[in-house]
């Protein structure tokens, strides 16, 4: 698993990067950083691919790729600036680990299904991982993709739902309540696991088990069914004044707030 020190290094990098760029979307980026760290750090093999369906978490993905040496500090310094490849949402080309430009919600599950199906048709090993938000399941295309993936027995597909309970203009329960999400995914025929999306042990276990399928090994659950991991998360995780607050979908950081956030991260390491 990724240790607290490494996780906080990513959080600090993310905060600095967003502060330097003067952009928001911090809450949803911080909230999925543990998931991305487990995916890229422990779960994914060379043959696997990742699709970030919640494209507004591009910053978290860039920082994760940075933590794995796939992007440099110089790359991150261009984030959100003129002429950058690191736009506010993932780019269509130029970064080998990013296969698809996303940002309009509801595309990732279908794209990842296509990858998983394409590998299977060619007899190629590999597991497709896709990260969606929970509000994203308002989009009908997500359900189209899940029905397709179950029907075509895409066991080499795992969709992780970053369920932070907040979306663009309200709480998911208040905007268009889709709970109980796990029960709905089960009813579609997927293998469903519900975990604490900030528990590195639980994340590593769930994602590693999921990833086995598609690499010749079997995973528990309904054979051949795609997997959905409902990861319960806290938007803005790690920075107390952002945690669970919708406005941090939008607000940019000030220097004072950045200092406060960094001090909090230092404190968690001193007191652990």
């Amino acid at each position, binding site marked *: 698993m990724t240790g607290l020190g490494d996780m906080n290094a990513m959080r600090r990098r993310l905060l600095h990067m967003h502060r330097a760029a003067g952009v928001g979307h911090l809450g949803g980026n911080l909230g999925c950083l543990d998931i991305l760290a487990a995916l890229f750090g422990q779960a994914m093999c060379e043959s696997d691919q990742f699709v970030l369906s919640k494209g507004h978490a591009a910053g978290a993905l860039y920082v994760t790729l940075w933590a794995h040496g796939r992007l440099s500090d110089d790359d991150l310094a261009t984030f959100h600036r003129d002429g950058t490849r690191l736009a506010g949402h993932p780019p269509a080309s130029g970064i080998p680990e990013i296969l698809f430009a996303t940002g309009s919600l509801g595309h990732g599950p279908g794209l990842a299904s296509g*990858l998983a199906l*394409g590998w299977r*048709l060619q007899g190629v090993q590999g597991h497709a991982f896709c990260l969606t938000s929970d509000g994203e399941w308002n989009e009908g295309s997500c359900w*189209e993709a899940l029905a*397709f993936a179950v029907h075509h027995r895409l066991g080499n597909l795992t969709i992780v739902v970053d369920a932070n309970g907040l979306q663009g203009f309200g709480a998911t329960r208040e905007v268009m309540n889709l709970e109980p999400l796990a029960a709905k995914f089960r009813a579609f025929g997927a293998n469903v696991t519900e975990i604490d999306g900030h528990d590195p042990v639980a994340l590593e276990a769930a994602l590693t088990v999921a990833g086995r399928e598609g690499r010749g090994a079997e995973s528990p659950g309904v054979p051949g069914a795609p997997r959905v991991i409902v990861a319960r998360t806290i938007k803005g995780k790690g920075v107390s004044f952002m945690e669970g607050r919708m406005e941090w979908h939008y607000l940019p950081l000030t220097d004072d707030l950045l200092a406060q956030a960094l001090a909090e991260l230092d404190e968690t390491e001193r007191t652990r």
Partner: protein
Amino acid sequence: MRRRFSDAIVALAGDPTLAFLTGDLGYMALEPVRNALGIRFLNAGVAEQNMISVAAGLARAGLRPWAYSIAPFLYARPFEQVRNDVCLHRLPVRLVGNGGGYGYGVMGATHHALEDYGALLTLDAMTVLVPAFGADVAPAVTRAHVLSGPSYLRLGLAEEPSGSEVPPFAPWRRVVAGDGPVVLACGPIAGTLLAPLQAFEKARRPRLWVVSELPVTTLPLDFLDDLRAADHLIVAEEHVAHGGVGQAVALALAKAGATPSRVAHRHAVGYPSGRYGSQKWHRAECGLDVTSLLALFDEREAMPSTDDSQ
């Protein structure tokens, strides 16, 4: 053209990278494709947005996917998936829309494709193939199959008289020679025009050109020569004026400094009466029927820069 399309795909089935998706359509047409491709044939269900995203994923995984539906369900319903998932990455996904123009006739407006290639040609790297004759379908399919980027194949019904001899499929072709005005047609309407135009005596016989691959970029020299001699252009297409062949050709001519003194454009105009009928009936309502088009050759009708965009 559906049967010919099916045969053409079957002929390519030996390519192990070919995969075929349908949006739950193709009954009585695609069964041979299903049989030839086996697991590489997938009915994606009535879920076109997902079908296009899946096709993009298949292409990213190294396959050569085709996606089939009734035209509007392929370019209009999942337009964002075509734009974001396919075209932003220039992925070689081949879209096949059946029923170009008013092809679905009295089935009604929801099934018509009057703005398909105009809309799709706004997207990066998109190539549009519009077979005009039955014999065009197989080479158009082969062309799409080898393209490295996205494409859209617009299918209709073959309208040429059986036994017609036409030049082989090409982006631009002169299919009727003469000394009269230049008629530029896009799609199977060229087949319907074939016999009536051939019946003219040579001195007045219109020169029928067919464009089958879009976008219009540069104009062929032979076409420009014909146009210079005739100084009279009539464009006929079963597509709205906006984003159509007429506009593209007018711009290309303007850039080339070759705009003829007389230009007429006949195109789809939607549903001016609010009523529905066969494809032929809708064409007549748009002035795209043979009688209306022939009337354009009449000297009295052929006023300078006739505006037919009513």
